[in-house]
């Protein structure tokens, strides 16, 4: 095959010159046309481009509502007015801002700062200057419109929490998306300036509540006025979320904790549906729709009150005597003691060279299981604890859900701690500290020592005790529905996460004793009894958890935590409620009355009317004779 390439036989140079001429000619034509468009008619086209232009307008979707279990709205939207500036329409932005500051008595520097923050954006994009301004400001700005070129008033739906701080920790709040969040995959498609759920249910169900932003390309003239519409993509409102919360019960729990630090959780034992979930101190999520002053924000985030901490699910506390329920279950089920066996309490038990005291210094005398629970005798449980050993106590507590997260879909949940010999080996690196001391068992068996729980865990685990051992996942959402009424996920069925295999008869012994705690003359929880519903029997357990003094802890923090967990009606429980008051003192005196308030509100809302009217506090005393 001949691969020698043919030599050029004719004059390429002449042809290249010709081709170059063609190129120059063609490009000259193009440049001529460009000259015609850009130089001769440039000014006209420049004006045209300014007069006839498209501007993207985003239509924020209205966020889904949150309703209580009976459809009463808890969170809605309201129109909010914001003041914005389009730099392109403001010939002298500094002057406009200066006038605007004067007009509405705003610090002059603040608006400039707002504008500086958005420097990178394009000139025709509106900049947010003031969020959620009053109608007064709207009126002032509107009336001076012609002195304020580039300034516009925009109306956007804003979150409105109907009951203010009620259930703030549960409902959560929304706030502008952060730079860090914009990087996350779940916030793909969000833009800076979008508001998103940042806390509580608002954050947890963000993807359903948010809705889809609509967009519109509008044709505007030089002064920014709309002269036509080019394309329109309608917004889609967010889905409504119906919660399991019961508004009256939630309100009662909220009122009960007023002025205290602590938490209340109420739920349905059979379904795990949460009826009330309150943490105190609280905040008003409505304030996040406007600008939150820096000092308020700092106090919220890092103040000593830990206001944003949802104590019901994130707070961990020693359970104190409430824990004895699980110790007793373990003891009877493991048959280390018979229900009838009596142990004599002399106010303390010498062990390992020291005396483990009972809360009743003079002693309870000989007590059996029932007496020990009703009167919350520590010595009885010290003895039982020695017979059981820590690992069997751990086993039973874990079966009912302690020491691990309940799986409630709300926020990062604390798991608490349920110690065991295995835990200690894992937790301590130094072999000298890894050994479990029998004395520690004596602390654990009465809910002290290393044991910690969240109030929600106590509610959920006691619910399992009164529900035949079925541990239900605590749920806050009943259903999610789209705004047009079509169900997306029509319900969230009760979810059994574990079944603590404990004999029915054993559970019966324990619940009988819990009824005794409230109704026995010697019971520690008498103050939960509902005078207004005498026919409804309440069961429960008190707890007074000692707070371990760490180093130079302040004196007031050494006061005990008050616990009470109760359920009613005893024969067929509809509600379990737990109250925890930080440093509140004795549980029977300081936590049981709070649970009573919750119970009464719940039964008032479900039964319609109280069985007995109580006119006044004195009248109440008189009427309890029967």
């Amino acid at each position, binding site marked *: *095959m001949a*691969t*020698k*390439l*043919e*030599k*050029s*036989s*004719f004059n*390429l*140079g002449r*042809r*290249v010159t010709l*081709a*170059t001429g063609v*190129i*120059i000619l*063609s*490009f000259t*034509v*193009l*440049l001529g*046309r*460009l*000259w015609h*468009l*850009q*130089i001769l*008619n*440039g*000014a*006209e*086209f*420049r004006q*045209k*481009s*300014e007069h*006839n*232009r*498209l*501007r*993207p307008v985003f239509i924020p979707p209205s966020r889904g509502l949150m309703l209580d279990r009976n459809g009463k709205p808890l969170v809605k939207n309201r129109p909010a007015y914001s003041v914005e500036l389009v730099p*392109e329409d403001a010939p002298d932005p500094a002057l406009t801002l200066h006038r605007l500051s004067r007009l509405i008595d705003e610090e002059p520097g603040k608006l400039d700062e707002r504008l500086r923050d958005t420097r*990178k*954006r*394009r*000139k*025709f994009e509106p900049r947010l200057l003031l969020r959620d301004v009053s109608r007064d400001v709207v009126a002032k700005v509107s009336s001076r419109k012609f002195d304020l070129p580039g300034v516009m008033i925009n109306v956007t739906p804003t979150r409105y929490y109907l009951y203010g701080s009620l259930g703030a920790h549960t409902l959560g709040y929304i706030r502008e998306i952060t730079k860090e969040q*914009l*990087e996350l995959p779940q916030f793909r498609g969000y*833009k*800076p300036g979008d508001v998103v759920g940042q806390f509580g249910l608002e954050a947890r169900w963000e993807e359903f509540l948010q809705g889809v932003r609509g967009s519109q*390309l509008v044709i505007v003239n030089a002064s920014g006025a709309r002269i036509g519409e080019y394309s329109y993509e309608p917004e889609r409102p967010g889905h409504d979320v119906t919660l399991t919360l019961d508004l009256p019960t939630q309100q009662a729990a909220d009122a009960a904790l007023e002025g205290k630090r602590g938490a209340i959780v109420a739920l349905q034992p059979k379904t795990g549906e949460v009826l009330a979930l309150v943490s105190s101190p609280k905040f008003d999520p409505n304030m996040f729709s406007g600008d939150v002053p820096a000092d308020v924000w700092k106090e919220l985030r890092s103040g000593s009150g830990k206001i944003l901490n949802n104590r019901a699910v994130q707070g961990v506390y020693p359970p104190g005597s409430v824990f004895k329920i699980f110790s007793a279950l373990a003891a009877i089920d493991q048959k280390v003691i018979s229900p009838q066996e009596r142990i004599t309490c002399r106010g303390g038990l010498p062990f390992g060279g020291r005396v483990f005291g009972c809360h009743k210094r003079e002693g309870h005398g000989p007590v059996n299981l029932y007496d020990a629970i009703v009167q919350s005798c520590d010595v009885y449980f010290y003895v039982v604890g020695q017979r059981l050993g820590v690992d069997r106590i751990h086993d039973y507590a874990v079966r009912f859900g302690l020491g691990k997260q309940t799986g409630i879909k709300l926020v990062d949940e604390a798991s608490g701690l349920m110690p065991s010999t295995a835990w200690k080996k894992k937790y301590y690196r130094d072999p000298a500290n890894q050994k479990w001391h029998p004395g520690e068992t004596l602390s654990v068996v009465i809910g002290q020592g290393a044991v910690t729980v969240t109030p929600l865990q106590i509610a959920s685990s006691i619910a399992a005790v009164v529900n035949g051992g079925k541990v239900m996942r605590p749920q806050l959402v009943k259903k999610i529905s789209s705004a047009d009424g079509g169900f997306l996920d029509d319900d969230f069925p009760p979810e059994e996460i574990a079944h603590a295999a404990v004999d029915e008869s054993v559970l019966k012994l324990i619940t009988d004793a819990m009824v005794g705690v409230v109704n026995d003359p010697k019971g520690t929880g008498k103050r939960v009894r509902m005078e207004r519903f005498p026919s409804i029997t309440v069961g429960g357990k008190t707890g007074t958890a000692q707070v371990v003094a760490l180093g130079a802890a302040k004196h007031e923090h050494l006061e005990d935590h008050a616990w009470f967990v109760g359920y009613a009606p005893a024969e067929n429980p509809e509600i379990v409620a737990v109250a925890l008051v930080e440093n509140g003192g004795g549980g029977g005196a300081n936590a049981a009355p709070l649970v009573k308030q919750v119970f009464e509100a719940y039964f008032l809302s479900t039964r319609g009317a109280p069985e007995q009217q109580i006119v006044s506090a004195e009248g109440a005393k008189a009427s309890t004779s029967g």
Partner: protein
Amino acid sequence: MMWNAAMEKRILRTFDWPLLLTGLLIPLLGLGVLYSAGYNPDNNLRMLFGLIDSPASPAFSKQATFLLLSLVVMAFAMALPPTFLHRVSYVLYGGGVILLILVLLFGTVVNGSRRWLDLGAFNLQPAELMKIGAIMALARYISKYPPSNDGYSFTQVLLPLSIVLVPMALIMRQPDLGTALVIGGVGALMILFVGVELKVLVSGVVLAVAAAVPAWMFLLHDYQRRRVLTLFDPAADPQGSGYHILQSIIAVGSGSFAGKGYLQGTQSQLAFLPEHTTDFIFSVLAEEWGFIGCASVLILYAFLLYRILRVAAKSKDLYSSMMVTGIASLLFVHAVVNVGMVIGLLPVVGIPLKLFSYGGSSLVSTFFCLGLVLGVSMRRFQYLRGAR
């Protein structure tokens, strides 16, 4: 052939640096304009392996990546000896035709056109390959049967013409009018370059005009007819077919002498043009950089074309000359048709501005062509020894 120090020295000395630098400068400027066209402060594009966050569009980083890949492809093309290219010309052409038939049978439909072959790992656009195949086949034919001093006669011109007419017809079927016209234009320019008899030229023009009428009536689709009509009166239907061209003209015109400034083009940034990163990228340039920017880029193109033609003139074998001429024609047709379309001189046929528009495969194939040109340029002193 063996490399030695003397050869290396000669290659460095004779290497066409101006051609390479111009060929690199244009896509770099294109990247700058593409950055603006896709600019959105809301973008948080991770670039340089996550080192920086940038408001550029994903298209920008994709194009930058393809530019790097293109350099590798260009180096590869430079290494191909003309003898080898000469040998595979018809094979490549035949392969291209077969792929075009396959695409008509099995291609994926995008926007109503069947242009892509889905090869699993990537999509192949056979028309892009066909451009190179047609250039090489025509170059081989012309170098084997060059015309006499008078140019090709009627009978002589039929065969080289059919080399471009076959792929043209296949591409028209997709339908992709723009690419078909590009191949036709490139073929016509190559044949005119070596010359045709005057009567052939005259009757060709007459025939083209005469063919335009039935083509208008039977070959063109409705939307294509509208685009041509729009050219004469864009304002007739400002919301419909005239919309893009009108907005493009406003964008270009509003750039005035010095432009509105980088990233400040209101027309281009507002998505009024659906193809403002590809076919209409020149109007972004025109709006933001004005007449100065447009003239600079056009002069760069003219200079690049001149350097390529210079390589064609200096090459000692006709095949290489014709191949290089074909590549120059390709860039020329793309530039003139695209810019002409953007500034309202030619109908909207939807072809990109080579080296400037966003589009990975177009960029890679163009750099392959530039590599071929540089390869020819490098070997101009050893063309005979190159043959084994």
